[in-house]
């Protein structure tokens, strides 16, 4: 796989950055939809009545931390320090799981308070946007756990640093999207 390439860049990494570029448009469209429909709900619950800022701030914190664990995991793999790599990889996945748990809790409490997909346009746009992000987190968690298991099996080593780096790119991108969502959906009501 590692022929000399024209740009001197790893092909998989290049492909992955193109993919991330493409994802920008995906989330851009979803976020646009959310913003366009902001304040267009015909019936409540409306965002200020239902969004829980302290709770979501914690989720945000958690996701930011998991990004830190991710870079540390990559640094460990690059050093060849597989012991710490396992720790950080698992930590990152755990951060993702906590975030997802929070989202499950948030969604179910919203549904409890009467906000569903069908209830109003806020519900529809909110669930589809954050749900799409959540789906990305889920994929990321599975991916991270896969790497972690392979690390436990001893099948992941410094020679796979690029794989870990790409996983990291994905994970940080998901984090970056959340940074935007947190501001546009939660803080700017």
């Amino acid at each position: 796989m590692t022929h000399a390439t024209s740009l001197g860049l790893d092909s998989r990494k290049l492909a992955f950055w193109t993919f991330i570029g493409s994802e920008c448009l995906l989330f851009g469209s979803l976020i646009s939809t959310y913003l366009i429909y902001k304040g267009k709900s015909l019936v409540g619950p409306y965002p200020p009545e239902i969004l829980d800022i302290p709770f979501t701030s914690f989720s945000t914190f958690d996701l930011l931390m998991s990004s830190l664990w991710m870079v540390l995991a990559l640094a460990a793999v690059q050093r060849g320090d597989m012991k710490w790599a396992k720790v950080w990889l698992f930590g990152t996945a755990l951060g993702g799981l906590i975030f997802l748990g929070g989202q499950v809790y948030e969604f179910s409490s919203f549904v409890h308070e009467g906000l569903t997909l069908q209830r109003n346009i806020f519900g529809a746009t909110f669930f589809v946007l954050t749900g799409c992000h959540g789906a990305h987190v889920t994929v990321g968690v599975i991916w991270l756990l896969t790497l972690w298991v392979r690390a436990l099996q001893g099948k992941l080593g410094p020679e796979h640093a690029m794989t870990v780096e790409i996983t990291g790119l994905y994970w940080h991108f998901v984090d970056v999207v959340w940074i935007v969502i947190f501001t546009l959906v939660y803080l700017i009501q």
Partner: protein
Amino acid sequence: MDQGTPAHDHSHPTAGTYIRVATILLIITVVEVGVFYVPAFKPVLVPTLLMLSAVKFTLVVMFYMHLKMDSRFFTFIFGGPLLLASGMMIGLLFLFGVFVLGR
């Protein structure tokens, strides 16, 4: 940009840098949430929050995703679509007359 650039050994930043970035990110997040709760900020809330989240965005992309040290090419591949996405969002918001900044 073409031939011969050997896979340049983009020295990844050290754990120290990562932790410093994380600290800044956390502080910004705290400020964001704080600003949200302080009534005095109401008039400038939206621009402030947009700016803060842009800073966070940039930090993560620059340091955690290594765009700062990595090949310029990645910046281009990511920046182009990001630009299109932003243009599309701004255009759509204008067209639907919900330009949030102007509220």
